[in-house]
Structures are given as C-alpha cells and as structure tokens.
C-alpha cells in the first residue's frame, strides 16, 4: 500500500514535537476528516532554523508531516513558500491515490505557519482561535452531509440511508 520511504518516515518520524516559543504556527485539517496537522517554525535571518510537527492522522499523514519538515528545514522563507503538497508526495516516492486528497496537508500547514510568522512580524494581532475555526469550516465542506438529518452520507448516494430523503448532489466540491 505505502512506499518504503513512506513507511520509513511513518515508523521513524523526524522532527516530532512542539516548539514552545515558536515564531509561527500553522494548523490545518480537523480530526472529523481524519487528519489534523500542526507545524511550528523558528525563523532566523529569514531562514527556517527549526521546525517541528504534531499530527493526528493515518500513516500517510504522519509520513507527509515528517518529510515536509525535512524539506523545509534550512530553507529561506521564499523557498519554503514554493514547496507544494505535490513536492512532498514525490519526495515520499508517491502516495496512494485516495490519500493524495486528505492526508497531503503538509505544505498547507507550512505555508500557514509562515503566514502566521509574517503576520506577527507585521504587527497584526492574530486571533488564533478564529483562524482555526476557518480551517475547520473549509475542511468540513469537503464531506457530504444529508441536508435534512445532518448525518454524513456517501458522495454518490441518491438518498440518505439515515432518514431516507432524496439528495441532490449540487454542492460545490
């Protein structure tokens, strides 16, 4: 199922943990969807001097987090902003198709941490609680919920198995 590189990073994840005096924190995903990733960065001279992560998720999500920290460490902020989710997946020797979508959040978390650092530096007071709420909302929009009983339904299901209501699939994802 997973490549050898993925299994290596899953079994021996690099840079796990938290930086208590981080210069920037990025947080994406939510546990409802199965994956949540926090990235902490320390910035020195416009370079990522240190980076750590905490992740709730499947084997792919943990490997992605680990590989991302390896790719980002020592890079300038500009270089780090150019790292894409695709780059991380490629560095891991590929990910299963169904994981590319949900578990490949590493670059998003990194970019969010850098943005957080820039905002702090620019003197913008950041409301982290509100920021988190927005992330959660954007992730939830990817799941399908029955509009009548609010239970999660299969994307292609013509009716809700819970309440029997017909569902039209015209939402925007």
């Amino acid at each position, binding site marked *: 199922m997973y490549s050898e590189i993925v299994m290596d990073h899953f079994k021996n994840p690099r840079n796990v943990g938290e930086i208590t005096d981080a210069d920037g924190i990025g947080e994406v995903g939510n546990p*409802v969807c199965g994956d949540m990733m926090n990235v902490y960065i320390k910035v020195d001279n416009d370079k990522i001097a240190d980076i750590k992560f905490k992740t*709730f*998720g499947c084997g792919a999500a943990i490997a992605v987090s680990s590989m991302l920290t390896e790719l980002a460490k020592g890079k300038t902020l500009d270089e780090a902003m150019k790292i894409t989710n695709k780059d991380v997946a490629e560095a891991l020797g590929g990910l299963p198709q169904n994981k590319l*979508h*949900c578990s490949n959040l590493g670059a998003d978390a990194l970019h969010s941490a850098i943005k957080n650092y820039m905002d702090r530096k620019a003197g913008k007071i950041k409301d982290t609680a509100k920021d988190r709420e927005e992330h959660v909302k954007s992730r939830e929009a990817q799941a399908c919920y029955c509009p009548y009983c609010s*239970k999660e339904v299969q994307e292609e299901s013509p009716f809700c198995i819970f309440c*029997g209501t017909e569902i039209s699939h015209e939402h925007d994802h």
Partner: protein
Amino acid sequence: MGVIYLDHLSGTPLHPRVKEAMIHHINTVYGNPVSDHQVGQMAAQALDTARSQVAALINADPGEIVFESGGTESVNHAIKGVAIGMREKGNHIITTNIEHKSVLNSLRTLRLLDYTVTSLDVDPHGMVDPAAVEAAITPGTILISIMLANNEIGTIEPIAEIAKIAQKHKIVCHTDAVDAVGVIPVDIKTLGVDLLSMAANQFYGPPGVGALYVRKGTRVWPLLDGGMQENKRRAGTENLIGIVGMGVAAEVAKEELPERLPRIKALRDKLRDGLVARIPSIIINGHPTQTLPHLVSVSVKYIEGESLMLMLDEEGIAVATRSACASGSLRASHVLISTGMDFASAQGTLLFSLGRDTAEADVDRVLEVMPPIVQTLRDMSPIYKKEHTT
C-alpha cells in the same frame, strides 16, 4: 515469530479438514452436477452432501439452502429477490442504520426502482428496538431486513422477536447472519426468519462461497437468471470446490463450537479487560452482554486507527480498523456514528477478532505491545495535548 492474526471477521484461515476435503475433491471430481452420467452424478452427490452439512449447522432442511458466491450475493439475492417477487404486494422495506454495505447498497439500487426504505436508528449499544420495527410497518411493507450480529461492534440484535412481529404482519423477514453463523449457535427454528445469509469464510471455509437459507414457501426471485441450478433459484454452474469446503466447514463448526465458544470468549474477555486496565481514554463499543464472543471493538481517543493498525502490523499483529482513512471511502464508519459516537473518536477504532488458533500468549503479547504504541501516537497528536491541558 509468526503473525498473530486477530482479524477473523475479515476472513478465517481454512480449517485443516476443509483444506483436505477440497484437495480430495479437486483430485477426484470434475463433472457438472446437472449431467446425468456417472461422472456428473459424483459431482451431484458432493453437492448434496455439502447442502446437508450446511443445513445441519442452522437446523434447516437441505432443500432450503441455496449456494451463492458469498455473503454479499446472498444478501443481494434475499433483498432484491423479495423486492421483485413481492412487488404486487407493496414496495416498502424496513432496515436499520448499521447494516453491512451489501444491504445498504442493495436498498440504494431499489430506491432507484421506486421502492421506499425506512432505516431505523439504534441505541448507543447498537441495539434495534423491536417496537420501532413494528411501528414502521405500513400496508405496503414487503420485507424487514435486519442483521443478526453487527460486523463492527458485535451487537447481537433481537431477531427472534423481530421475526415474530414480521410473521404477525405476514411480512418476509431476512437476517444478514454472515458474522454470526459458525461463530455462535444459530438455529433457524428458534430464530423464525424466512431468509438468512451466511458466508463460509467466517467459519474456516473458503472465501467466495456462501449460502442463502430460504424457508419453504418464501417467494424469492432469482438474482442470476439462467439454468435450473439450485432448484431454479440461482442459475450458473456451482462453485463445487468452494461448496465442498463450505460443507465441511459447517460440519466442523457444528462439532467444535461447544468447545471453541467458551475458550475464545474467555480470551476475548481477557483482551478487552486488559486493554481497559492498561490504556486510558478508550471506549469499548457494542453491547456489554449481547455481543459476538470473538470480537473486541475499541475506539482509542486522540489517535487515528490506520496508524495504530500499521504500528501493530510492524509488531506482527494483524487487526482491522474502521477509521475513515482506511475505509477506502474516506468516511467515518456509519455504524459507529449511528451509535452516537463523535467523528474524532470513531477515527481511532480497532477491531480485534479472535479465532480457534488464538492462544493466550497472543493476547498477552497484544496487551504488552499496544499501550506504548498508543502513547507514542498520542504524544504525536495535537488533539491529545489540547484536551489534556484544558
């Protein structure tokens, strides 16, 4: 060190006697049971023997057993067969929110063909209320399909009581007993259902073969149209090698169950109680007493099931997970959500299903290996820290 296999709900290894019977059959029989010559009649005889063996396991008559390609086909046949066979009587079907996908998706297809479905909620233990079943009956109800034992939480449903209600209202009653037959004693006479689905690979028979019990007089249209096999109820040349294996597996199950059951249940209890004692913040799913004797369904909070399953696999322990990530559909288990569990906890669900080869040392090994793995993953989890510092 060999693998500790604790995923018997996904499929059991062949029993040595089953393997032997299948090999013997391959070496000696090749005819088609429909042929009247002697070669064909040898095959017909093997088919009859297997039919009697399977019937005996559930106390049915051999004529009431239809061989199928597995549990999924058996369920499809029961539901769609009744829907077509009883169409002039009505178009309403009653089921529950925790059925196997073969039931859910059969009903999804029927919805497209203008059948209506009432899907009943369950209590936090996953138990269906027979009174709710009776209340859902309409003049157009033609079928009640409710599983005997749930494949994710193990809850055993009050099917005998539900079958009585169905009988009173002259409605056909089907039960998906795939995870129960060969695991717990199942007697069709005390259960009282009209249709029952089972699969050989739940009781040490081969995969790809199952059966549908059809009570005499029940109207079930064929799912596969063609020749006159299986008394015109399931066309196509039988998978005789598999069927022979299923027959012997049924015979062995009937013999061994009185010994297997208490031994496996004791090991299951030890595993369940040991996990509760050693790992904080876990939830044991299902009903405390009305449950499959070989299953521990556990939700480990703050971590995700697939990574837990992979780490146990690295230690040579094979288990199943019901996290959204591992499901293929990337959706949390509909069964766990139906019992009222929150999405995040459902993600950390593991299923340990024990078997006839499970030894006490295997359970001890799981209890030794799992707590530090859980701690490693929790130390990595952002939600663990959050909920533990607030």
